[in-house]
C-alpha cells in the first residue's frame, strides 16, 4: 500500500491571498467553521424571534392581530425545525466540528477540503430555501415540527401548498450537506491524526463529535426517506403515508397509506438526532470542566465507552416518542426498558463530571459557569425524561406542557448553555481577542435563571393538564384562571431572556475589534489547539512541523510539574514511562 509522506509537507505557500478565495470560497476548515457558525446563529436568531411571538400569543391571547391561529402554528413549526436542525446540528457539527477536529488531532485541515466547502454551500442553500418559505403564497408550513401526515399536506393546514414543499426540499439539501461534512469528519478523525495521537488520547470533544457524526450519517437517511416519500405523496399523488380520507367534504385521491409508517421513520431519525446534538455537547462540557477545574477528567475510559454505548442504544429507543400512537403494550414495554437503559451511560457521564469537579481547583470563569449550568439543567431535564420514558406516565402527560418543559430543558437549554460555554472558551483562540468577563457573567446568570423561570413553571402547567400545541386556552373549563397568570409570567421571562442575548452579541462583536489581545493559551489548557504557533491559527495550522503528541489530554495539576498542567506536546517526564514509542501492554 503506498504511503505518501505528506505529514510535514508545508501548505503555507498555497495560502489563498485574494479576499474571495480566503473568506468566501474558502477551503480552510477554520473559515468554513466560522461560516457555518455565523449562518447557524443568524437563523437561530430568527427562531428566537418566532418563539417570542408564540409566547406573546400565549401570555396575551388576542392582544396581537398579526398572530392568527395559522401564523401561530407556522411560528411553532419553524421555531422547532430551525432550532433542532439548522441551529443545533449545524453549529455543533458544522461549526465546532469543523473548527476543532483538525486542530485537536493535529491535522492541517480536513481530509477533503473541497468537499468541506461544498458542505457549507449546500447548508447555506438549505437555509435559504427554508427562509424562502416565509414568503411564498400561503406562507411556511404550520404542520408542527414533526410534520406528521396526513395533516401536514392536507388543505387547511397552513402552508400546505408551498410551505411544506420548501420545508421538505430544504431538509433534503441539508442532509446532502451533512453527509458531505460527516464523511469528512469521520475520515479526518480516523486518518489524519498526528503522530502519537491515538484514539484514546483524543480529547472527549473529538470523541463526542466523532460518534455524533456517525449517528448522523446513519440516522439522517431516515429523515431523507420520510421527507422524500411525503414529497411524492404531495406532488405526484402517491399513497405512501396518505390514507383514504375525507378532506373538507371531499374524498381525497389517496388510499391505503400509513401515517404510522411516517412516524416510525421520522423518529428513527428523531431520536438519534437528540444524541447527535447531545454527544458533542457532552464532549465539549467534559473538556471545559476538566480545564477550568484544573483536574484530569474523572474516568476518561468510562466517558469514551459511555459515548459509544449511548451511540449504539440511541437507535433502539425511537418509539418512546410514539406511545400515544396506540402501540402493542409489549412494544411499549420494550421501548420503556431501552429508554431507561440508555439513562445508565448518561448518568455515568453526569457522575464523572461531578466527580471531576470534586476537590478540583474550580475557576468560575465564564465558560465554567456555563458548563456547571449545563450539568444542573441536564440533570433536571433528564429526570423528567425518566417520567416520560414510562408508558403509563407518558400517556396522560404526552399532550401537555410537561413535555414542552422537559424537552426544552434537556434539548433546548442544555446544549445552548454548552454552545455559549464553548464560544466563550474558544473565542480567544478563534479571534485572538478576549471578551468582557463581566458582561459574560451577566449573560450567564440572567440566561440561566431566566430559562428556569420559563421552563420550570411549564412542568407545573403540564401536571395541571394544560394541552400543548393550543393556540389559546381561554374557554376551557378545567383550566384555572391562575394558569393564565403563570403564562403571563413565562412570557415575560421568555422575552427577558431573549433580550438578554443581546449582551452576548454585543460582547462578542465589540471584542472582535476592541477586546484586549488574547494570550495564546489563556486557560492553561493541554489540548493541541492551544499550542498552535499563531493565534488565531493561520492557514495550515501548525507552521512548518506538525505537533507530536506524547500524552493524553488531561494532565492537569500534575505533582512536580513546572506549571499546573502539561500540554500534550511535551515529551515524557522523569519518573514516568519511557518515550521509546513502545506500547505498554
Amino acid at each position, binding site marked *: 500500500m503506498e504511503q505518501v509522506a505528506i505529514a510535514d509537507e508545508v501548505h503555507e505557500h498555497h495560502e489563498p491571498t485574494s479576499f474571495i478565495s480566503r473568506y468566501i470560497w474558502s477551503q480552510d476548515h477554520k473559515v468554513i467553521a466560522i461560516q457555518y457558525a455565523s449562518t447557524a446563529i443568524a437563523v437561530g436568531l430568527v427562531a428566537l424571534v418566532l418563539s417570542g411571538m408564540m409566547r406573546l400569543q400565549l401570555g396575551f391571547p388576542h392582544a396581537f392581530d398579526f398572530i392568527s391561529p395559522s401564523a401561530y402554528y407556522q411560528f411553532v413549526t419553524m421555531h422547532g425545525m430551525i432550532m433542532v436542525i439548522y441551529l443545533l446540528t449545524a453549529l455543533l457539527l458544522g461549526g465546532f466540528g469543523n473548527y476543532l477536529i483538525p486542530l485537536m488531532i493535529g491535522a492541517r485541515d480536513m481530509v477533503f477540503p473541497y468537499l468541506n466547502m461544498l458542505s457549507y454551500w449546500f447548508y447555506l442553500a438549505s437555509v435559504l430555501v427554508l427562509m424562502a418559505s416565509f414568503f411564498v403564497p400561503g406562507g411556511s408550513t404550520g404542520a408542527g415540527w414533526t410534520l406528521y401526515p396526513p395533516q401536514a399536506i392536507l388543505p387547511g393546514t397552513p402552508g400546505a401548498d408551498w410551505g411544506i414543499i420548501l420545508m421538505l426540499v430544504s431538509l433534503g439539501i441539508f442532509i446532502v450537506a451533512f453527509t458531505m461534512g460527516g464523511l469528512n469528519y469521520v475520515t479526518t478523525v480516523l486518518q489524519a491524526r498526528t503522530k502519537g495521537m491515538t484514539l*484514546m488520547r483524543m480529547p472527549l470533544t473529538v470523541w463526542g463529535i466523532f460518534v455524533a457524526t456517525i449517528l448522523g450519517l446513519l440516522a439522517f437517511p431516515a429523515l431523507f426517506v420520510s421527507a422524500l416519500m411525503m414529497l411524492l405523496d404531495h406532488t405526484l399523488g*402517491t399513497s405512501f403515508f396518505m390514507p383514504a380520507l375525507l378532506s373538507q367534504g371531499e374524498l381525497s385521491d389517496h388510499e391505503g*397509506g400509513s401515517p404510522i409508517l411516517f412516524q416510525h421513520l421520522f423518529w*428513527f431519525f428523531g431520536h438519534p438526532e437528540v444524541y447527535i446534538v447531545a454527544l458533542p455537547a457532552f464532549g465539549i462540557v467534559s473538556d471545559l470542566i476538566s480545564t477550568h477545574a484544573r483536574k484530569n477528567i474523572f474516568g476518561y475510559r468510562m466517558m469514551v465507552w459511555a459515548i459509544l454505548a449511548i451511540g449504539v442504544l440511541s437507535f433502539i429507543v425511537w418509539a418512546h416518542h410514539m406511545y400515544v400512537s396506540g402501540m402493542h403494550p409489549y412494544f411499549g414495554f420494550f421501548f420503556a426498558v431501552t429508554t431507561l437503559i440508555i439513562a445508565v451511560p448518561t448518568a455515568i457521564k453526569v457522575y464523572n463530571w461531578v466527580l471531576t469537579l470534586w476537590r478540583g481547583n474550580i475557576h468560575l470563569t465564564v465558560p465554567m459557569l456555563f458548563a456547571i449550568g449545563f450539568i444542573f439543567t441536564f440533570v433536571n431535564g433528564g429526570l423528567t425524561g425518566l417520567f416520560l420514558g414510562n408508558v403509563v406516565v407518558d400517556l396522560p402527560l404526552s399532550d401537555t406542557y410537561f413535555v414542552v418543559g422537559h424537552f426544552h430543558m434537556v434539548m433546548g437549554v442544555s446544549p445552548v448553555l454548552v454552545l455559549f460555554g464553548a464560544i466563550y472558551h474558544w473565542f480567544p483562540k478563534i479571534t485572538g481577542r478576549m471578551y468582557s468577563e463581566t458582561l459574560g457573567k451577566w449573560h450567564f446568570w440572567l440566561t440561566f435563571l431566566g430559562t428556569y423561570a420559563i421552563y420550570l413553571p411549564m412542568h407545573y402547567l403540564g401536571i395541571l393538564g394544560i394541552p400543548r400545541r393550543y393556540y389559546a386556552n381561554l374557554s376551557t373549563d378545567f383550566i384555572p384562571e391562575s394558569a393564565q397568570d403563570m403564562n403571563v409570567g413565562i412570557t415575560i421571562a421568555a422575552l427577558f431572556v431573549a433580550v438578554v442575548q443581546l449582551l452576548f452579541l454585543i460582547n462578542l462583536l465589540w471584542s472582535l475589534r476592541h477586546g484586549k489581545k488574547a494570550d495564546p493559551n489563556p486557560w492553561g489548557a493541554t489540548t493541541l489547539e492551544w499550542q498552535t504557533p499563531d493565534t488565531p491559527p493561520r492557514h495550515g495550522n501548525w507552521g512548518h512541523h506538525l505537533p507530536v503528541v506524547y500524552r493524553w489530554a488531561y494532565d492537569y495539576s500534575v505533582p512536580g510539574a513546572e506549571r499546573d498542567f502539561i500540554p500534550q506536546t511535551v515529551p515524557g517526564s522523569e519518573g514516568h514511562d519511557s518515550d521509546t*514509542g513502545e506500547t505498554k501492554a
Partner: protein
Amino acid sequence: MNIIVLFMVSVMAIFVWWMLLQRITAKPWLEQGVAFDPRVAGGNGYSPYVAGKLALWVFMVVISSLFMLFITAYHMRMELNDWRHLHLPGSLWFNTALLVVASIALQTARQGLERGNAGRVRAGYLAGGLFAMAFIAAQLWTWQQLVAAGHPVASNPAASFFYLLTGLHGVHLLGGLLVWGWGAARLLSGASLARLRLTIESCTVYWHYLLLLWLGLFALLQHG
C-alpha cells in the same frame, strides 16, 4: 422496522468491534511518549489513498442505511390491504445484464492497472462508464413501458415504490458517473495511470456495490 434495526445493530456491532481493535481499553493516563499507533504498523504516514478508500466505504454504509430504510418501509407498506402485485417487465433482465457488463469492464480496468496494461485500463474504464449510462437509459425506457402498460407512479404503492427505488438507485449511479467522467477526461488527456489509481479503483468498488444493491432491489421488487 425489524430490518432496519437489525441492520443498524450490525453496523454498530462492527463499529464497536473495530473500536475494540483500536485499543479503546488502553489507559492513556499511564502512557507517555509516542504511543503505538494501530493505523500504520510501520510509521505514521498519512495517505490520501487510504483516506479516499475509507471515505468511499463509509459512504457505501450510508447508502446502505438509506436503502435499508426504504426496504423497511416497503415491507411495512406491503402488508396493508391496498397493495397489488406489480408485474415487472422482462426488459429488466436485459438492464441487469448491462450493469453486470459495466461492472466486469471496470474490474478489467482494475486488473489492467495492477499489470500496468494501459490499453486495458483505458478500454475497461471507458466501457464501464458507457454501459452504466446505457443501464440508466434502459431503466428510463422501462419506466416508459410501465407507464404505457397502465402503471403510472401513483397507480399503486407497489408501482410507486418501483419508480422510487429504481430512480434513487439511478441517481446514485449518476453520482458515480460524475466522478467517472472526471476520471475519463483525465485519462483521455493522457494523465498517468498512477495518478488515476484512486479514481479507477473507487469507481470499480462503487460499481460493484451498486450492482449488488441493484440485484437486491430487483429481487425485492420481483417478490413485491
